[in-house]
């Protein structure tokens, strides 16, 4: 810009200098020419008068040294010349001024002389004796004048050029400085020259519009962050280059970053989980992708989908959700199904075996009765198993029988003791029920099952001469505690944490005790259904104590 201003200024200066030069030269030339001609005319008048008065031409010429004086006879022969020898000069009849003077009495002409930039002005007059007197003088032509002025001219051009350069630099600085110092935040507050005010007004409008967009965007982002804050799933938005545009709070935790730090970074710079990487790659290539992976010990499902604008993929949305619980539940269900099938198959195989022997008729008459008894026994076990499974699945689905009412735990203990008396007698185990009435509100059938299962275990896994005790305690405030204690074989520490699992038997070799492996599992679920907690303490060879604690009903 500075160059352009300089050029404009320099050009103006140059043009004005040139124009002035040309015009003044024209005027000067005319002035000088007129003066020279006037001087010649007066010389001519004086010399001719003097000649006609009888003066010598040589003396006259000497007196007028500036001008050249020539005397030509009527036939054109040069009689005298003040600069050259007359005899060397040719006939002058062909000179226009001489010819004119001979014809009309006076003549004038201008001829370019041999010297560059000069011209000669001639004036001639016919004298009374018929000869012609000519006076001539040289004068600078236009070119001559120009050559004389040229150095001055060049000097002027240089001076104006550099002056305009200096001035243009100053002017540019004066124009630009306020522009550079503009306060762009509030353009109208600037104190600058008035030519800028349309620009500043437009800036102001534009600023307001941009501010509007920004605050709208920020509000939308904040709103979006708020909405997604509560999501359990991690949400990640990516642009087409795989850089993070947004992460919600769950994703911040998962990726170990904050929104401010994470945004704008390449996703894989935050996590190099291979499945996340391939889900991202798939989505950015335009295909919805789902992958399972493990992140920090949790099983996660990564789902990524492309975001499209027209045909082009402009980004991806990635959802990562924790499926650990579902995964474990599915695993438990698979194991349960496998266990149930196995447990059902064992008695059925036995029944099938006996039935085949009986069918073939190879068994003796007295054996048939025993086989029938075995079949009966296995079938009973099968029914028990199926019943237990049904009870468990009902408890699983929280479907308590609709018989909630105050139940005396002591009464349930006494009933169970009576039911198990024959079995206990056979094993030489004594049963005792101690403590108060201990009423709790609940389902009698389920609680009865709970007490019965615990006491059943205490009797079965006991030693001859051992004791099984049901102890009941009431606490102030309404909490109740049921303890079933035995002096039996106990459970090893490593098995203790598994005893409440379905189909777990601490001692596989004792499965002939007739248990289904579901008893303690039912106890646990029955207790949970009543809001009670179960605690098991056991020492191998010493005995086991199971404590069921019913919390106070607010």
């Amino acid at each position, binding site marked *: 810009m500075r160059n352009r201003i300089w050029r404009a200024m320099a050009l103006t200066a140059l043009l004005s200098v040139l124009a002035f030069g040309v015009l003044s030269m024209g005027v000067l030339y005319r002035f000088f020419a007129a003066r020279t001609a006037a001087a010649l005319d007066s010389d001519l008048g004086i010399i001719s008068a003097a000649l006609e008065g009888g003066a010598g031409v040589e003396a006259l010429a000497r007196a007028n040294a500036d001008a050249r004086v020539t005397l030509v006879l009527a036939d054109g022969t040069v009689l005298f010349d003040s600069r050259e020898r007359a005899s060397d000069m040719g006939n002058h009849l062909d000179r226009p001024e001489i010819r004119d003077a001979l014809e009309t009495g006076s003549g004038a002409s201008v001829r370019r002389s041999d010297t560059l930039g000069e011209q000669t002005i001639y004036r001639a007059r016919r004298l009374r004796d018929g000869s012609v007197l000519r006076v001539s003088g040289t004068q600078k032509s236009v070119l001559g004048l120009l050559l004389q002025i040229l150095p001055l001219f060049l000097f002027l051009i240089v001076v104006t050029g550099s002056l305009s350069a200096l001035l243009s630099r100053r002017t540019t600085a004066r124009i630009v400085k306020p522009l550079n110092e503009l306060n762009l935040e509030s353009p109208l507050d600037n104190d600058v020259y008035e030519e800028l005010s349309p620009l500043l007004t437009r800036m102001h409008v534009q600023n307001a519009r941009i501010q509007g967009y920004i605050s709208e965007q920020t509000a939308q982002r904040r709103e979006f962050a708020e909405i997604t804050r509560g999501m359990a799933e991690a949400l990640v938005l990516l642009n087409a*280059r*795989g850089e993070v545009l947004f992460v919600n709070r769950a994703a911040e935790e998962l990726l170990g970053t904050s929104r401010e730090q994470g945004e704008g970074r*390449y996703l*894989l*710079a935050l996590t*190099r989980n*291979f499945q996340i*990487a391939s889900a991202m*790659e798939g989505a950015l290539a335009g295909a919805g992708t789902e992958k399972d992976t493990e992140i920090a010990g949790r099983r996660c499902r990564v789902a990524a989908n492309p975001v499209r604008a027209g045909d082009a993929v402009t980004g991806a949305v990635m959802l990562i959700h924790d499926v650990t619980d579902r995964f474990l539940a599915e695993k438990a269900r698979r194991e349960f199904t496998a266990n149930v099938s196995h447990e059902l198959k064992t008695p059925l195989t036995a029944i099938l075996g006996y039935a085949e022997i009986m069918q073939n008729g190879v068994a003796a008459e007295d054996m048939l009765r025993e086989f029938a008894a075995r079949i009966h026994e296995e079938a009973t076990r099968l029914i028990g198993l199926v019943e237990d499974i049904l009870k468990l699945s009902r408890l699983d689905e929280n479907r308590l029988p609709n018989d909630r009412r105050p139940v005396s735990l002591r009464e349930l203990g006494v009933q169970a003791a009576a039911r198990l008396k024959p079995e206990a007698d056979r094993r030489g185990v004594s049963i005792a029920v101690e403590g108060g009435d201990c009423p709790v509100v609940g389902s009698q059938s389920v609680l009865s099952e709970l007490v019965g299962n615990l006491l059943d275990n205490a009797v079965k896994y006991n030693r001859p001469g051992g004791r099984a005790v049901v102890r009941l305690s009431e606490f102030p405030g309404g909490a109740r505690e049921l303890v079933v204690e035995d002096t039996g074989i106990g459970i090893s520490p490593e098995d203790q944490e598994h005893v409440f699992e379905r189909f777990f038997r601490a001692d596989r070799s004792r499965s002939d005790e007739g248990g289904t492996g579901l008893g303690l599992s039912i106890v646990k679920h029955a207790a949970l259904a009543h809001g009670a907690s179960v605690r098991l303490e056991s020492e191998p060879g010493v005995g086991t104590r199971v404590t069921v604690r019913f919390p106070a009903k607010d």
Partner: protein
Amino acid sequence: MMRSRLDEQLDRLNAELIDMGTLVEHAIEESARSLSPRDIPRAKTVLALDRDVDQKERDIEGLCLKLLLQQQPVAKDLRFISAALKMITDMERIGDQAADIAEVVTMLDAERAVEMTLIPEMAGETVKMVRGAIDAFVLRDLTLAKWVIDMDDVVDALFVREKNALIELLRRDRNAAAHALDLLMIAKYLERIGDHAANIAEWVAFAITGTHKE
């Protein structure tokens, strides 16, 4: 501020390198996991990964050369690109050797596959080195890069111990020769992977500081 084309391409190069690092890290992790307990299907997935790693190396190489020719970068950018060119070679080798280990895993003597001596420990340390090298690159972390370079001695020492353990195994059981050779190959591959991880860490240090360890 407009991002220049050079910045944009450097960002892409960075992302591509992280991609390749992710691939390579996954390959060696899966390889190590397929060792004990022996997991042939897992080992076979590693063999497939190696092709992706090779493809990535060619892509990145092309990108680097394009950057060098078209943008004529200087100073830090030039250093980054030349370090990238060196790093991909090391990463590609790690990918190859992870695949080599996987291949040996598929051929291990099934009856002896439980006897792995120090291999799982070595594999664990090597995986840590590779992960550390890639992390050092992603985070431009000089301390981490130096840690990886120092770790190389640990893996080298483990290799020597493994070799002695295998000699001991052969002394005890002459029939274990084939198995011992397989294990020795795996140990050597792991040791080489450790070297490559240390190389990557050195190039990371070069990209950051401008000086490369002799």
